[in-house]
C-alpha cells in the first residue's frame, strides 16, 4: 500500500458522495433536489459555481427531465451522473428503464427514502427495491465512507465495455446521509487515474458515424434486446470481482459482493442491508461474548444478485432471519427475503428462514430489536421450525 494516509474529514454521507462526484468530475450532471438527497446537489452545485469541477450542471425542472437529460447526455458521449431519492426515483421510473435498455453508464447515488404515500421523508428501501427490475446495478452502502468509495468504483463498473449498465449507489436517508462520520478521502490524482477517461463506442456527437438510439422494436426484436441485458447482468457478476481487486490495489480498500461478520462458524445469522448491519454487529459481539454462535451477512451488491457468494457464506448457518426495510406487498414477505429463499432452494443447504420487515418510514431499529430476532432464531432452532415466517419488527401490533 503506497497510499499516503490523508486526514479523516468529518463529512455527512451526502457530503462524502458529493466529494466523490467532485473527484470524478463528470462531464454532465442533471439533477433535481429532493430530501434527503438535496445536499448532494447543493454541495456539487457549489463546486460548479466555484469552478472546482468542469461539469456542466443542468438545473432541470423535474426528476423525469433529470433522467431524460442524463440519457441524452450519456448517449451523446458524456460521462453523466445524477442523484435522487424515493418519489424522485418514482417520477423518473419510465426513463430509468430506458437508461438501462440503452446500456448507458449513468451513475446515480440514491439516498434511500420511503415512497409516498403517505408522504414520509425518512429512510427505508422501498424506492430502490421498487426499481430492482429496472436493469440497473444496485449497491447498498453501510457508511458514508463506503458510499464515497463505491461511487468512485461505480464509474468503472458502469463503463466497463462488457457491462455497460447504469449503477445505483444506495445509502440510508438521514441515517447515513446526514450523520457526520470521519471519512478518509482518496487522493484526487489517484481517483482521476482510477476512473480514467470515458471512451464511448457510439456517441451521438460522433456526427461522422451517425447512429440511432431508441428505435421501435416490434415483436421480432424486443426479446433479443432484453436478452442482451440479461447477459450483461450475468456478465457483471463475473467482471466485478476484477474491478474490486483493482480498487483494492489502487486504494487499499477491500470490497466484495457481500460483507460478513463472524459468519464462518455461525449457527444463527441475520441478513441485513446498509446501516442496520452496523447495529447488528454490536449485537453479534454481545451474543458471542455470551457463547452464542451468532453471525451477520450484509449483501452489498443486490443487483446482480450474488447467489453463489451468499450461499457460500450461509453454508453452515442453521437458521437465518432476513431483515427487509421494504415491503413488496406480495403477501409473502419482503424482497430480500424472497430472493434469498429462492437462492437457497436448490443450493443444497436448507436452513430455517424467517423474514422481519422493519424500519419502514424511518422507524428506528434498536439493538434490543435485533437481539429479539436472534432469540427468535434460537427458539426456532430448538423447535426445528420457524413460528412466524413473516414478522413486522417494531410496528405497534
Amino acid at each position, binding site marked *: 500500500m503506497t497510499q499516503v494516509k490523508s486526514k479523516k474529514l468529518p463529512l455527512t454521507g451526502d457530503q462524502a458522495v458529493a466529494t466523490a462526484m467532485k473527484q470524478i468530475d463528470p*462531464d454532465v450532471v442533471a439533477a433535481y433536489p429532493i430530501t434527503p438527497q438535496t445536499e448532494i446537489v447543493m454541495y456539487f452545485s457549489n463546486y460548479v459555481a466555484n469552478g472546482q469541477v468542469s461539469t456542466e450542471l443542468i438545473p432541470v425542472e423535474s426528476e423525469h427531465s433529470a433522467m431524460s437529460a442524463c440519457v441524452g447526455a450519456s448517449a451523446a458521449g*458524456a460521462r453523466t451522473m445524477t442523484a435522487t431519492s424515493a418519489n424522485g426515483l418514482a417520477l423518473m421510473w419510465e426513463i430509468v428503464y430506458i437508461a438501462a435498455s440503452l446500456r448507458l453508464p449513468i451513475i446515480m447515488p440514491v439516498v434511500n427514502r420511503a415512497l409516498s404515500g403517505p408522504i414520509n421523508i425518512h429512510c427505508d428501501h422501498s424506492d430502490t427495491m421498487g426499481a430492482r427490475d429496472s436493469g440497473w446495478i444496485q449497491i447498498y452502502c453501510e457508511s458514508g465512507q463506503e458510499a464515497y468509495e463505491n461511487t468512485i468504483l461505480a464509474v468503472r463498473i458502469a463503463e466497463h465495455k462488457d457491462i455497460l449498465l447504469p449503477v445505483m449507489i444506495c445509502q440510508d436517508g438521514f441515517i447515513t446521509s446526514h450523520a457526520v462520520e470521519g471519512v478518509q478521502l482518496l487522493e484526487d490524482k489517484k481517483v482521476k487515474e482510477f476512473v480514467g477517461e470515458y471512451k464511448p463506442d457510439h456517441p451521438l*456527437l460522433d456526427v461522422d458515424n451517425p447512429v440511432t438510439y431508441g428505435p421501435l422494436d416490434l415483436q421480432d426484436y424486443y426479446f433479443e434486446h432484453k436478452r442482451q441485458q440479461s447477459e450483461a447482468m450475468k456478465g457483471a457478476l463475473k467482471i466485478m470481482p476484477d474491478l474490486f481487486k483493482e480498487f483494492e490495489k489502487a486504494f487499499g480498500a477491500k470490497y466484495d459482493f457481500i460483507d460478513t461478520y463472524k459468519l464462518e462458524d455461525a449457527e444463527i445469522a441475520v441478513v441485513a442491508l446498509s446501516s442496520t448491519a452496523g447495529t447488528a454487529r454490536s449485537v453479534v459481539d454481545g451474543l458471542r461474548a455470551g457463547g452464542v454462535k451468532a453471525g451477520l451477512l450484509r449483501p452489498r451488491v443486490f443487483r446482480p444478485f450474488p447467489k453463489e457468494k451468499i450461499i457460500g457464506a450461509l453454508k453452515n448457518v442453521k437458521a437465518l432471519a432476513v431483515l427487509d426495510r421494504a415491503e413488496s406487498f406480495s403477501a409473502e414477505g419482503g424482497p430480500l427475503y424472497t430472493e434469498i429463499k429462492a437462492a437457497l432452494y436448490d443450493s443444497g443447504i436448507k436452513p430455517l428462514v424467517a423474514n422481519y420487515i422493519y424500519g419502514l418510514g424511518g422507524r428506528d431499529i434498536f439493538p434490543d430489536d435485533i437481539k429479539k430476532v436472534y432469540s427468535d432464531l434460537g427458539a426456532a432452532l430448538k423447535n426445528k421450525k420457524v413460528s412466524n415466517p413473516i414478522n413486522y419488527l417494531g410496528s405497534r401490533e
Partner: protein
Amino acid sequence: MANIKELAKIPERLSGGHRLCAGCGASTVVRQVLMGTKDYVVAGSATGCLEVATTIYPFTAWKIPFIHNAFENSAATMSGVETAYRALKKKGKITKEIKFVAFGGDGGCYSDDTDIFTENGFKNIKDIKVGEKIWSVNPETNELELQENEKLHQYPYKGAMIRGKSRFIDFLITPNHNVPIWYKGRWEFIKGIDLIKRYKTAFLRKFYWYGNGIKISDIDIPKIPKYTYQKEFSKFEINKWLRFLGWYISEGCLYKSKSGYLIRIYQSNNDKKEKIYKLLQNLGLSPFKCNRSVDFQSKQIYEYLEKECGKGSKNKRIPKWALALDKGHLRQIFGSLMDGDGSVTKQENRSSYHLRYITASTMLMNDMVELILKLGRNCSVSKKDGIYRIGIDNEYLKHKLYSRRKLYGDKQQVTLENYKGFVYCPQLKKNHTVIIKRNGKISLSGNSYDIGLQSLSGTLERGHRLVYVCYNNEAYMNTGAQRSGATPKGASTTTVPHGKESHGKEQFKKDLTSIVAAHRIPYVAQASASNWNDLVTKSEKAFAADGPAFLNVIATCHRGWRFPQEKSIEISKLAVETGVWPLIEVENGVWRFTYKPKERKPVIEWLKSQGRFSHLFTEENKSVIDEIQKGVDDNWARLENLCNSTCKIA
C-alpha cells in the same frame, strides 16, 4: 430567401424507406426543417408517428445521429445532448459545430457603424456579402485565418447595447453578443452583458501568423518583350526584394518619359539614401544617387511595380502574395515600409516608442493593418484630410477593460448605450471571431454562434441552444387520432367523437406558440410545409438563434383528418389561406406576420375539406361553424394587435 436549387444540394437527412403513411405531412415538415442549416445536426424525437415509423428496428431512416427517449421528454433529452456537447467542446474533445433539434408533437450583433476586416480590407458590416472571406482568429491556436461568411444576420434593434471603449478598443454590441476574452491563458467566450458584471476583462491583442507554409528563397519576375538593350531580370532573392518593395511602396514613384522607364525612391536622409542605394546595387539594378532620391531604369521592373504595388500615392498596395508569407519575410517589408513613411516618436518621460504610419492609399492602409496584425501587434486608424494615420501599438499582450474603475478621471470603459436601428452580424463557418474597427480602433470580437410543456418549458427557461419543432397534426395521431390539447374546436377524434350529444371537441385549441413566446426565447415561429420558403427561412433563423428556438409547424394527417392523401400540401395551404394557421414569427419579442393572404378565405372552406369536420354541416351544428370563424377572426385581430404593440421600428 431560400433558393430551392441550392437547398436541393444539401444531402437528405431523412431517407426514404420509412414507414410513415403515403402522403404524410410530418416527414415533409421534417425534411424542410432540416434544410435550415448546413451544419451537422443531431435530432431527437418524442414517441409518435414520426419516431415510430422512422426507426422500426433494425431499420432507421435517419442519416444523422438520432435519439428517441420517451413520449413527453424530447426537450429534456435534447437538453442533455446539447449540454454534453458544450461540456465536451469546452474540454476540446469536440471541435465541430453541431446543431440540435427536438421534434415533438402537441433562439449577438454589432451596431451599424462597425467595420469588419475582410480579405479585401475593412468594410462596413452592412456591405459584407455571403461567401466573402473575413479575417478571424482561431480561438484554439490564436492564429489569424480567413473564414468564409455564410450569412449576414440583420435585425432591427431598439434598446440597450453594450459599449466597450478604451484607448485601444471600441465596440457597440447587443447584450447577448459573444465576446472573446482572454481568461486563464486561453480564449473564452462570454456574453456582452457579462462585461458589465465583471470588474475587469482581459482582451488579447496579439495574434499568431505562420504564413501559408511555403518557403520561398527567390521571387521570379515576369519577362517582357525586350526593349532596347536593357538588362533582363529573372529572379531576386526574396528578402532583399521584399525590402525593396517596402521602399517602393512607401517612397517610390514611377516616371515614364522619352528617355525611359524610371523608378525613383525618394529619400532626403543621407543614411537612408545610402541604405537604399546599397540595396538596389545588391539587387543588380544599377541605381544612381540623386539629390533627393535614388533612381534606376527598367521597363520590366516599372511594369512589375505598377501591376503589383500600384502607381501613385492613392493606389499603393502590398501584393497579396507578400502578405501570405511568414513572419520572417513580413518583417523585411515592414522594416522598409516603416523606414519610408513610418515615424517613430519617443514619448517624454517614458521609455516606450510610438510608431505611426501615414498613407493616402486606402488599399495600403488595409494592407498595413493586415501586416501589423500578422506581425503580432495591433493598431488603430484615423483619417484626416484624406490621409490615414495608423498608430501601431506597443506590444501589449493583453488589454483590460474595466467596468467599474474610474481611471485617472476617465469614464467607465464598459457602459450601456441606447441604440435604435439595425444590428448586424456575419456568421462565419468557424472560429466565430472577427476583427472589427470602430472609431478607428481595431479589436477582436465575436460573432453569432451558429452553428438544433414541462420538459419544453424547462428547456426554454434554461436557454439551451436547440430548436424545438412541434410537428402539429392536431391530435395523438400515432395511437389512433385521439383528442389532444392541439385539436381544434369542432374536430371529431376517436376519444371525443361527434354524436347525438356532441359536436366533437368543445374547446379551442391551446395556443402553444404564445405559451412558448411567453418564455421570451430569441425565436418562435409558426410555419407550414406548403409555404416551403417561409418554413426554410424560419428554420434557418431558428438554427441561427443564440438560445432556444421553437417552430410550430402544421403537419397534415390524411388518416386522422380524413382527406385524399395527395392533397396533403393543398390542405396545409388552405389552413394558411383561411387564417386557421397564421404564418407569424416572434423575434426577440417582436411579433410579425411573415405572410398575409390578400383576402382571408372563409373558414368553411377549411372545414369542408376534411372528414373530421363533416358532422358540422348539419342544421343543429351550424352555429359551431360561426363560432369557429369568430375564433379565427379574434385570433387574427389579437395577432395584429401584438404586431402593432411590439413593432420596434417605425
